[in-house]
C-alpha cells in the first residue's frame, strides 16, 4: 500500500474521533483498536481513548444508533429499543428485489406467456416451484387459465403490478432481442 508520507500533521482528538467513526461505519465487520491504530498510524492508546470518547458521545446522544464492542472490535448498530420498528420496516418495505431464481422465472414468464410450469422447467432446466410462489406472492404474475393439454396444467402470465413495477405501459414495451442487438451491434 502506497502511503503518501508527507509530513504528518498531528490530528486533533476531535478529528481522530470523527475519522474513527467514519471507518467503523464503512467497515463490514467490527473494527479492532489494533487495525484502527495501523490504518491511522497512531498508537493504540490514542486510538483507545478516542474510541472511548466516541462511545461516550453515542451514549449521551439519545439517538437511534449505538456503538457496541463486539467480537473484540467496535461496530455501529441500531439501538435495541427500536428493534421492533426496524424489524417491521425490513419486513414490510416494498421491494422490487428478486432472487436470481425468481428473476429467471419471471423473465421466462414475461417473454413466453402464457406458460405452464412444465414449460418453464423445460426452458430453465430447473424446478421453479418456489420461485413461482414468490412471484405469485409479490403479485408479479397471475394464473391465466388452464392449458387444454394432458393434465390441464395452469398457465401463468405477468400481472398489472408487473407492468407498474417495471415501468411499462404494456407488454409491447418489453425490450426485445432486436432492441438489444441494436446496442451490441
Amino acid at each position, binding site marked *: 500500500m502506497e502511503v503518501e508520507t508527507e509530513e504528518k500533521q498531528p490530528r486533533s482528538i476531535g478529528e481522530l474521533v470523527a475519522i474513527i467513526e467514519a471507518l467503523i*461505519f464503512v467497515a463490514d465487520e467490527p473494527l479492532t483498536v489494533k487495525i484502527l491504530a495501523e490504518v491511522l498510524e497512531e498508537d493504540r492508546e490514542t486510538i483507545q481513548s478516542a474510541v472511548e470518547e466516541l462511545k461516550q458521545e453515542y451514549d449521551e446522544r439519545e439517538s437511534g444508533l449505538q456503538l457496541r464492542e463486539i467480537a473484540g472490535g467496535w461496530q455501529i448498530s441500531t439501538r435495541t429499543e427500536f428493534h421492533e420498528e426496524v424489524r417491521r420496516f425490513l419486513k414490510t418495505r416494498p421491494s*422490487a*428485489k*428478486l432472487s436470481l431464481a425468481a428473476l429467471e422465472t419471471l*423473465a421466462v414468464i414475461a*417473454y413466453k406467456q402464457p406458460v405452464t410450469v412444465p414449460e418453464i422447467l423445460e426452458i430453465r432446466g430447473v424446478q421453479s416451484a418456489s420461485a413461482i410462489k414468490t412471484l405469485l406472492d409479490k403479485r408479479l404474475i397471475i394464473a391465466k387459465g388452464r392449458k387444454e393439454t394432458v393434465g390441464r396444467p395452469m398457465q401463468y402470465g405477468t400481472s398489472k403490478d408487473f407492468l407498474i413495477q417495471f415501468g*411499462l405501459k404494456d407488454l409491447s414495451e418489453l425490450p426485445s*432481442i432486436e432492441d*438489444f442487438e441494436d446496442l451490441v451491434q
Partner: protein
Amino acid sequence: MQQTEQISFDFYKETPQIVGEANEEIKLKLGEFAGPLDLLLYLIKQEQANIFDIPIARITDEYLRYIRLMESFDITIAGDFLVMAATLIEIKSKMLLPREIFADAEEDFADPRQELVDRLLEYEKFKSAAQMLYERTTVEQAVFTRGQIESDENNAEVNATVFDLLNVFQKILARHKEEIQLEIQREEITLAEMLKQIKKRIFKEKELSLLKFFNEMHTKRELVTAFIAVLEIVRTESVKLLQNKTFGDIILRKV
C-alpha cells in the same frame, strides 16, 4: 461495502489533443475524440476561429488532414467522421458560389454554415454537461455508505430492471441451447464407440460393474446402446457376466 461501482474518469487527461510539432508533423496524443463534432470544436479552438464565422475552407482542410492521419495510423474511422467530412466539403463548395446569385433574394440567403454552427453550439452544451457530471462523480467518490450489516445478508437479492429481464432470458436461452447440443452430442455415441469404450474399461480395470456403467449413461438411447453393446461383447469376446445374488449388481469380467 455497500458502495455501488464507482465511476471515475480523468476528464482532462483523456481529452485528446493534437500537438503541432516543430517539423509540422502532427502528433496524436492518447485518446480519441468523442465524435466528429468534438473534433471540429477542437480544430476551431486550435485555429482560434470564431464559431459564428467559421473559416470553413481552413477547418475542412484540417479536418481532412486529421482523418488521413488517422488512416495512416490504421485507426478505424467511424462512419460518422466520414459523414461529417462530406458535410464540410459540401458547405465549403456552397461557400465558393458567388454571392451575387443570392443578391436578388437577400432574405432567402442562408449561410450554408448555419446548420453546422447550431449543431456545434448544441453539442458543446452537452459536452460541458458531461464535464459537470464528471466533476460530480469526483465529489461523490469522496462519500462512502455504510458497510454490510446483518439484514443485508438475508437479502442477497438483485434489483431488477426490464433489461435485466431480457438479459437473464437470453442467458437462459443460451444455457438451454448448450444443453440441447450436449444432449445431441451424447446421443451420437454409436454402438461401435460404445463397444470400444467397454473393451477399454474391462482391459484397464479387469472388471466392470454394469450398475455403475449404466448409471453413467445420460439418455435412454445411450442406455439402450450400452445394453446392446454389453450383449454383443459377451457374445464375441472372452468376458463373463457374474452376479453374486439375484437382483444384485452384475459384473463384467475379463476371462
